[in-house]
């Protein structure tokens, strides 16, 4: 007789419910199972209508983000036995509108991401037979911020984003910084024009929870503070040498 653990799952059917409710299920507690396994067990054996996102089940795609006992987690990377004897409360990621059960609407992030212009911006493209040479030290300058898998756990953790949805948010700004710090990029001032609004980098209050929950150790909080420092020094430079101010290479 396998040990069981109770999973309390948030349910919401937009056609039927006014607000989300909770359903409880008992699933076997296998020591190698992750929370995603429990959800799939529920869907396969107990309640086929349970709706949730997942894909790679190994922590690289960023699809399975949910609140587990009030903390944003990738359910494929969170061991069920860590929550024994339970119950485990699973809810959709906070600060996003709920579409159905554990699925949220992330289109706001996609808009913000586009504002960050997350691609290499060049004034003049090099001819196709010339390569962009980058040293390991130059790569190290931005590599950490490039590890983002867009899982949006940081948005679920950020209270500022929860309180003001206009805030650009951790991942979008960290990704802008990833390109700003890339030695091949020449678009730093273009991104700054967009992100230096009150709801851009200046909206961040350095709570730091985004960094705590990030499964890829991107440290978006650090990225944003560094970005603030850069923006402030650019502002000072523009003040002191208005015409001679050079753009970041």
């Amino acid at each position, binding site marked *: 007789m396998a040990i069981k653990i109770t999973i309390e799952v948030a349910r919401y059917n937009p056609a039927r419910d006014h607000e989300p409710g909770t359903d409880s299920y008992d699933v076997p507690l296998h020591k190698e199972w992750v929370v995603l396994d429990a959800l799939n067990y529920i869907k396969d054996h107990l309640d086929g209508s349970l709706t949730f996102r997942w894909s790679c089940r190994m922590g690289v795609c960023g699809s399975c983000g949910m609140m587990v006992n009030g903390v944003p987690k990738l359910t494929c990377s969170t061991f069920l036995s860590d929550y024994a004897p339970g119950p485990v409360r699973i809810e959709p990621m906070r600060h996003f509108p709920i579409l159905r059960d554990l699925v949220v609407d992330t289109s706001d992030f996609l808009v913000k991401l586009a504002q960050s212009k997350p691609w290499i911006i060049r004034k003049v493209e090099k001819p196709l037979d010339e390569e962009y040479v980058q040293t390991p030290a130059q790569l190290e300058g931005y590599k950490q911020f490039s590890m983002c898998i867009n899982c949006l756990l940081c948005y679920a953790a950020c209270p500022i984003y929860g309180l003001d949805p206009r805030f650009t948010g951790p991942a979008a700004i960290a990704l802008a910084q990833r390109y700003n710090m890339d030695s091949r990029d020449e678009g730093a001032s273009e991104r700054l024009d967009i992100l230096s609004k009150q*709801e851009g980098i200046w909206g961040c209050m350095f709570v730091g929870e985004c960094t705590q929950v990030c499964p890829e150790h991107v440290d978006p909080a650090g990225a944003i503070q560094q970005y603030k420092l850069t923006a402030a020094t650019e*502002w000072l430079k523009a003040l002191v040498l208005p015409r001679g101010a050079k753009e970041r290479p």
Partner: protein
Amino acid sequence: MKRTRSNEPLLWLLFSAGGVVSAMLMPVHLFLFAVAFPLGWLDPPSDETLLALIRQPLVRVYLFVFCFLSLFHGAHRFRFTLYDGLQIKHLNELINVLCYGGALVGTVTAAYLLWRVP
């Protein structure tokens, strides 16, 4: 939303400088003048000594910088706490005036008091 690129970097720089100044200096200031001396843990300097100290131009500049930067640090932080803690961002013009205006009043008061040390 109005572009405030011209203001926010300055306010953040003042906030950062004020954060360093208040972090470095306030613990010892408060400990000495608000805890240790009133409780008698340490012998306070006499009021004549303090007056002689405040008369020195360097000390006056130190105290002015201490007050000015700490006030703007506190005002900036308090402004954002009002925005997000109380969720009253729609009153942001009023909040800005109260916070930074208050800091400015404090700074001018400090400058006046320190200038007028006999």
